[in-house]
């Protein structure tokens, strides 16, 4: 009988081994999948029971913070500046998760770096056994004042303003219209949150898809910065080649299709002159001369077809077609060289390209995070600037700076509206046809030469296609105002919206 009693023991042991194996499967091997199961709300609930760290702008404005709440959760996330920073902070929503900085720095905002104290009485023992409430604050590089100016300057028109520090990649302002108020999505009232979400989904201009870094637009003539840099890098002799004045250029490989300049003007000359007046016919020929491979390669170096390493989720890539696509379509190459056809850019990429010229050909990784501080004000982590790309050589950057200065300084330049007394501004205008009835106007700039502190890209969408609505008249004054405020610390006197 004893052998059978032992067999019973072995049987029970076997059952327990099965339990142990299943526990291993559930608690270790399959645990992550279960944790991330959409039905699993325990961590969401837990997150709502805890405060999150605050998000603070470089000029000290609180952009997001947790305040005690008296409803079903202990804390309510509030965004004091609402829609002004909505597309940057993102939201922290029970139903729709997180976006923006709330998403990117979620782990940091739910952390505490306050060192544990040596306990002096029993009640202080608790710090060793409980999760410390999150009290680390995220400081970002953006200036609330500059952001507010950008919003005021856009004056409700759809568009975007992106301003960067060329030497560090620090984002100073990044605003686009339409924006949204994250407070509506962070509410604890489910019905309200769902209604707000539905409304945002249907809203024109896709407020949840920030125009500044998640949407692409035709760059128009601002792309000539890349074309000109390609000429200087790959076919420098073309830069001094003289192109006769003309108002139209017959595209190669087409049955006499003619490319006309803006408003049918005639233009010509060497590259400096072509760039200054933004001569489409001249730059179409430069594009053909530099070749598809060189142009596509230059675009890649300027950050096209790559995702900028900005510390936000869902950053879009700008698009330049692969060189091979132009093999049997030289007309498309000519149009791409002036930023038409299928070339598309985010305002962020355009600002980075301006920063590349400003910083001697180097594109610093764009970033929002400046530092993290603990509850006692100690800096726990600090951002260190990193190089993202080497777009071009310092020599080419110097040449390009001359071209861009000429756009603003020359009497016949397209960007004269961006002139600031006492400050040398370098810029480039853009006016792109969208295929629809309206046009998009651009201005990208940096200042002050020779020691640039700020690079700006301004986009104003959906302008009626009349002569006065060009990048130089609509977008340039906005860029001017932003540069002026940043460098001189005062609001622009020349309001942009004067049509």
């Amino acid at each position, binding site marked *: 009988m004893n052998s059978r*009693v*032992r067999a*019973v*023991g072995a049987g*029970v042991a076997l059952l327990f081994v099965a*339990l142990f194996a299943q526990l291993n499967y559930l608690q*270790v091997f399959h645990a992550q999948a279960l944790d991330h199961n959409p039905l699993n709300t*325990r*961590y969401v609930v837990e997150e709502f029971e805890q405060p999150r760290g605050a998000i603070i702008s470089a000029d000290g404005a609180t952009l997001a913070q947790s305040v005690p709440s008296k409803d079903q959760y202990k804390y309510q996330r509030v965004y004091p500046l609402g829609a002004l920073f909505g597309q940057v902070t993102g939201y922290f929503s029970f139903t729709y998760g997180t976006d923006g900085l709330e998403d990117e720095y979620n782990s940091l905002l739910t952390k505490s770096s306050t060192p544990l104290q040596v306990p002096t009485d029993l009640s202080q023992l608790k710090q060793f*056994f409980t999760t410390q409430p999150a009290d680390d604050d995220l400081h970002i590089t953006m200036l609330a004042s500059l952001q507010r100016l950008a919003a005021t300057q856009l004056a409700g028109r759809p568009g975007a303003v992106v301003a960067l520090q060329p030497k560090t990649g620090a984002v100073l302002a990044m605003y686009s219209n339409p924006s949204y108020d994250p407070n509506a999505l962070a509410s604890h009232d489910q019905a309200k949150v769902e209604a707000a979400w539905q409304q945002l989904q249907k809203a024109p201009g896709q407020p949840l898809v920030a125009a500044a870094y998640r949407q692409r637009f035709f760059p128009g003539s601002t792309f000539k910065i890349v074309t000109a840099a390609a000429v200087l890098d790959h076919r420098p002799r073309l830069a001094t080649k003289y192109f006769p004045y003309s108002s139209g250029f017959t595209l190669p490989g087409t049955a006499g299709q003619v490319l006309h300049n803006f408003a049918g003007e005639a233009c010509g000359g060497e590259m400096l002159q072509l760039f200054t007046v933004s001569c489409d016919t001249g730059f179409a020929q430069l594009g053909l001369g530099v070749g598809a491979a060189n142009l596509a390669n230059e675009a890649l170096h300027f950050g096209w077809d790559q995702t900028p390493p900005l510390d936000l989720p869902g950053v879009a890539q700008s698009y330049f077609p692969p060189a091979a696509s132009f093999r049997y379509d030289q007309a498309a190459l000519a149009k791409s060289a002036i930023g038409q056809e299928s070339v598309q850019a985010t305002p962020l990429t355009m600002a980075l390209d301006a920063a590349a010229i400003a910083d001697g050909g180097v594109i610093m990784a764009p970033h929002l995070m400046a530092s993290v501080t603990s509850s006692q004000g100690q800096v726990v982590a600090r951002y260190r600037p990193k190089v993202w790309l080497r777009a071009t050589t310092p020599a080419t950057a110097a040449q390009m700076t001359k071209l861009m200065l000429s756009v603003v300084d020359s009497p016949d330049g397209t960007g004269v509206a961006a002139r600031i007394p006492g400050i040398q501004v370098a810029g480039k205008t853009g006016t792109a046809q969208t295929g629809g009835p309206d046009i998009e106007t651009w201005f990208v700039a940096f200042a002050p030469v020779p020691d640039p502190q700020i690079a700006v890209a301004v986009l104003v969408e959906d302008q009626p296609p009349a002569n006065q609505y060009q990048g130089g008249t609509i977008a340039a004054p906005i860029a001017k105002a932003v540069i002026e405020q940043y460098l001189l610390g005062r609001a622009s006197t020349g309001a942009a919206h004067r049509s």
Partner: protein
Amino acid sequence: MNAGTVLEAQRQRLSGPQYRHPPRRRSELGMIVLVLVLTGGLYALSSLGRAGSLPANIGPFLGLVFALMLVAHLSLRWLAPQADPVLLPMAALLNGTGYVFIARLDHAQASAQATWTLIGVLAFVATLAVFRHANYLERYRYTVALAGIALLVMPLAPHIGEDINGARLWARLGPVSFQPGEFAKIALAIFFASVLAERADLLATGTRRVGRWLVLEPRYLAPLIVAWGLSLLVLLAENDLGSSFLFFALFVGLLWVATGRWAYLGLGAGLFAAGAVFALDVVHHAQTRVQAWLDPWPHFATTGYQIIEGLFALAGGGMWGLGPGQGNPQVIPEASTDFIFATIGEELGLVGATALLIAYLVIVGSGLRAAVRSHRSFSKLLATGLSLLMGVQVFVVVGGITRLIPLTGITLPFVSYGGSSLVSNYILLAILARISDDNAQELELAATAGTEAGPPQPAATGVVRTWAT
């Protein structure tokens, strides 16, 4: 000479004032102190983790636990000095851990559980005091069987029975509500063991000739079949599938251990399969349970909710757990009773959950060791049956929570909230302690009194080894 009388005389001599307590009790006391440290630490951590302060009653808590365990320990010194020393500390560990988690989940239940622990320890002492030898249990087998069946039927009786959560498991006598099934399982184990001990040989070989075959005399098996069939019928009427399975495992397991006939295992498996098919067809309760086991995900909002939340809790715990008091057990229904293991897995992790399983294995192993060392068929079968009950019950509960087998609502011994479970398991523990004590006493007698009161079976010589404590 009657062996029982000799044992009694011997015991009186051994427990006299000149007798030094053997090291088994000393190591037991050491382990109890260790368990006290563990449980007290866990209680403090759990309260710190949840509320950030030490529990207000930590002093009285530790005092009470120590006092209770000391009472149990001293009663073992007095009543069963040679009992296996690991039984009580393991039960104390499980009971203490269970109390900590119940206190963390529900304050009102915690004070009730403390009262039940007190009653459980008293039942432990009483069992040891009343049954001075395991043979006493054998004498009253039909009384025990009747009591067991009466207990089983009790919840079905009008005015006494209560319906809770779709199962009719509860009986109310005056102010006290309890689950008679928890006690019935011990009664049935005693009955099965005594009948099988007597008739093992008759059941092992057929004696009646039918054609070319020798088959069993049905009348030898009749009492067993009747008791078992009645218990299953009652349990199906009460919708308690977990206990049905438990009884079935007990019955088939003991039958096989007693007779060594594989046919019983085969027959048992066949009967079980048939019973399962029948239950699936007829009992709606069983259908939903199996459905929620096979694929709980589509039924998240309804029948699958509890098991899915249990899985989420276990997964959240991971290897090391979230820490005592830091989990989210409030989302799991019945977190303090049927699903307490999920909360333990969440807060103590795989490590803590495994430690708990090992504690059960130690009790089961100790029970089976007593069975192996016993020279009496009855004690051997009883110890085997009780150990099997404990092991299978833990498997059914934990297997259900971890989705290894369909979920059935039975309690985790010593850990779950519930008085009946706690008291009955302390009685079970006392019986195992009693059997292990008997064995040691007999061995000592064999050593001191020579052949006079020696074990009846020659197998005993093979059992004389050094005692591993």
